[in-house]
């Protein structure tokens, strides 16, 4: 009985791990557009506020809003067929975009927590 439970649990774990790998792959692909764009936005923030906090604020804001939206748009424009790489593994476009955004939110939460502990 324990063996069956262990086997089923392991299969489910591997299934989730593989799904997560695909999502991370999409996340990396999207952020190869988003990060350079957001860095540029961060530099503009630096000009505006002349402080590191200005850079970080503009960078994070872009990473979550305009930069992210533009990345999804340009990825779709340049690599429309690439989505079939994920479709064939059962991911829809909405799941990919939503998942990538949630990963961003998780990263922000980790960053905030680290910042909170450091203060």
């Amino acid at each position, binding site marked *: 009985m324990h063996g069956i439970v262990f086997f089923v649990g392991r299969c489910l774990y591997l299934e989730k791990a*593989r799904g997560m790998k695909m999502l991370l792959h999409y996340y990396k*692909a999207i952020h190869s557009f988003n990060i350079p764009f957001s860095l540029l936005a961060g530099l503009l923030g630096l000009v505006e506020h002349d402080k590191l906090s200005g850079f970080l604020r503009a960078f994070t804001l872009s990473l979550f809003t305009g930069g992210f939206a533009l990345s999804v748009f340009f990825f779709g424009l340049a690599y429309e067929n690439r989505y079939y790489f994920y*479709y*064939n593994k059962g991911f829809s476009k909405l799941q990919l975009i939503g998942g990538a955004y949630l990963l961003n939110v998780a990263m922000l939460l980790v960053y905030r927590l680290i910042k909170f502990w450091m203060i």
Partner: protein
Amino acid sequence: MIQHELQADSVFKHFGDREILTDCFVRCKTGEVIGILGRNGCGKSTFMKIIFGTLSCTHKYVSIDGKKYDAPYKVKGLMAYLPQQHFLPDLLTVKAAIKLYADSRVDEERMMTDENVLPYLSKNIFSLSGGERRYLEILLLVNTPAKFILLDEPFNGLDPLVKEKIMLLIRAYRATKGFIITDHDYRHIIAASDRIILVTNGVFKNIKALEELETLHYLPPGSLAFSGLE
């Protein structure tokens, strides 16, 4: 052998005023290869994307084993689709793509020891030739748990040897899967398929005798005799 049945019925699609597909119907069972032929722009790829679930349409009824699905691709293990253009990310190595796509160690091992893939496992996908890349894409798809594989122009732009390798791949996996393939290379489609469907004026016609391909003006007169297919 477990038998599965895919049925796509009442598929209607229009682009603006132009009706591209009107009441199209296809049935495919495990072990069958259905070949779809048709002229450029007649709606072959559109039909495949509609039944896969990534393209919207006016109306469709897609079922697998009697259960209706609006977007079969979202349910794991139902369908896989090879688009016309390459879909694998350029920067992955062949090995990484296989590891990412394989559902089990057994599948991974099977793909990595494939004699046509083995020599370039460590290469990046962008450095592969068109034929090597197409073969890899099809190999990845047939090794998914999908019950039905839709291949959109699998032979396009490939040399005869690669075409033969792809034919062997289809033959090797047809025992456990159903295939729907479309291509302009009618000789290979005829050789690979159990049944041929011709798309003409938005309607699917089941071809009973190959001569119909000429009488329905898909092939120029004498093409079949010239190709030795009569």
